[in-house]
């Protein structure tokens, strides 16, 4: 009797593999179709077959008359995402510093902030929109929509920053103080650089969450659209592959943002941990 049969796998392996295969197909299949169809020839339609290959529909994207104000919406979304990114990073770092002090009511403030994660986004947007209306202030993408998006990105940023701070060794700050650094110098030259990879992670979240935010922005962006709303509008009235070209471009932007963020974190971590060849951990090389 063989105890372990090599090469033969149980039935469950094949069932689960098939399930995973379906999942991958479901996740990437439709998206791949969109990416491929965005390269339709000028006479092509919204469905397969491909009638030649071209960049015609990418070109069409940027001509406002045909497809709506794509360029404007894209610019607004990028500026808004950048503002959200900066504010989320700044507030998360400061909140992380504050929450290390275990101040009175810290738990209450924490739950108050995190609660906005579970509130329906549409209602948050509706509330912000109503408030602006009541106060007689016009809703704008760079004001009311910015605020509405921050209710979504800040709790994420804070949670990440808390995790980063929980691993932060206070001995670094004490060592810096011991070496004559003022509180501000400690923050600038020791705390910030050590936190930097964590801040990039927060920035990535802030950017991507803002860039494709829809429910909170819908009722707060005022007279002009952000990109997700522009896409939403196009799905109802644009009947050309320009819609797909838009999908391809936005995916590319997200992809570049993620690559930049993860890449820079990886480079920093690698720089801090790499051991050049010839260095051994062992003690025998200690002399000289």
């Amino acid at each position: 009797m063989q105890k372990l049969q090599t090469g033969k796998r149980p039935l469950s392996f094949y069932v689960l593999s098939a399930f995973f295969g379906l999942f991958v197909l479901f996740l990437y299949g439709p998206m791949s179709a969109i990416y491929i169809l965005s390269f339709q020839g000028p006479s092509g339609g919204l469905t397969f077959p491909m009638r030649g290959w071209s960049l015609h529909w990418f070109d069409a994207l940027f001509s406002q008359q045909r497809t709506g104000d794509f360029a404007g919406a894209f610019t607004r979304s990028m500026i808004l995402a950048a503002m959200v990114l900066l504010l989320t990073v700044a507030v998360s770092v400061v909140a992380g510093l504050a929450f290390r002090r275990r101040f009175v009511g810290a738990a209450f403030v924490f739950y108050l902030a995190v609660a906005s994660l579970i509130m329906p986004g549409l209602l948050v947007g509706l509330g912000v929109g109503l408030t602006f209306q009541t106060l007689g202030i016009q809703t704008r993408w760079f004001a009311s929509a910015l605020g509405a998006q921050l209710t979504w990105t800040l709790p994420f940023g804070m949670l990440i920053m808390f995790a980063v701070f929980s691993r932060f060794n206070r001995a670094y700050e004490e060592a810096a103080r011991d070496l004559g650094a003022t509180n501000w110098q400690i923050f600038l030259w020791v705390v910030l650089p050590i936190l930097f990879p964590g801040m990039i992670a927060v920035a990535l979240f802030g950017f991507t969450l803002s860039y494709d935010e829809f429910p909170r922005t819908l009722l707060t962006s005022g007279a002009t659209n952000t990109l997700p709303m522009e896409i939403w509008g196009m799905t109802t009235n644009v009947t050309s592959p320009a819609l797909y070209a838009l999908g391809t471009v936005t995916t590319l932007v997200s992809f570049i943002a993620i690559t930049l963020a993860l890449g820079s974190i990886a480079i920093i971590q690698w720089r801090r941990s790499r051991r050049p060849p010839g260095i051994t951990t062992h003690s025998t090389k200690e002399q000289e």
Partner: protein
Amino acid sequence: MNPEDRRTAQRGSIELAGVTKRFGETAAVRNIDLKIPGGCYCCLLGPSGCGKTTILRMIAGHESPTEGAVLIDGENVVDKPPVERGTAMMFQSYALFPHLSCMDNVAFNLKMRGMGKDERRARALEMLDRVRMKSFADRLPAQLSGGQQQRIALARSLITNPRVLLLDEPLSALDEFLRLQMRGELRHIQAEFGITFIHVTHTQMEAVALADMVVVMDQGQIEQAASARDVYDRPRTGYVAHFMGGQNVLAGVVTGRQTGTVTVASGTKNITITAPAPAPALGTQFEVAVRRDRVHLSRAPSQAADPGVNAVSGRVSGIEYQGTWLKISVEDACSEGFVANVPDDKFFADPLKIGDPVIARWDAEQLHYLVARSGKRSAASAAASGSSTVAAAG
């Protein structure tokens, strides 16, 4: 300030006067008085939680005393930040800044003081050279071994030109081989720079090997502050004797006084010992220490035999070969375990076996009278020091 405190010739003398530190309800350090002369290598020694690190941090300025004063060169520094005290601290895990090269780590203090890049880098290189790490200037801390990291940490502290260097368990992160090597290097650097070193450790032999002055602590108080030899050879209390190891502590209540001797009830045995002058009163707690290597073992005719003055009787319960000597444990000799260190040639001339009845005898001049305390604490500490006695006796 008391002008007497300024007598010490070298800079970096430290005085703690009535220092107490409470964290909430618990007192980590209780009413401590301690004087450390300038230029001294001082070890604060004790088990974890004894308050030694708290004292170090109070001298460094990372903790302020609840009561009392910390004086450096006669000046109270309690309200001063670390940098104005002339102290520098080396942290347990070194706390080297992971994002800065060795050179920039060492130059950190100079940068904070606003020194220009070229000058501070030149000074940092000079200091790196003194700790023989110049060729590692561009490395990041994570690229160094433990011993190399320690040298960088030393250089980073020393560049502040401190009067006092405070070291928190500096050797605990290193493996055994490196620990011995870096131990020698610390002593060497202390001599070279001629400043006061205060070194916190829980390892007896580290303290004895390094220090001019050993401060043995327990439960927030100082048990003994003296030279390494005195602390090892002439422990003040049973606790110090137990903690340093290498000693047998005989403790009990005085039940009889004869001419020149006293009888002490210890465990099930009555032990007769040469009495100090003046002799202790009947009924008082009496404690005495005898070094393990100053005990002579001989076979007893029977277990019931009266061992006589300055001797105990018992059975051999353990034999450990240590190379040049053997550690012989004797049970049923007194209230605590009794150990004799016997030279190998003497032992093998007539080897004892486990269970053999023996008499352990010592000369009157080998007796060391201890300051007796309530027996409870000595007993508790006996267990803690048991494991370290072999190393301590060597």
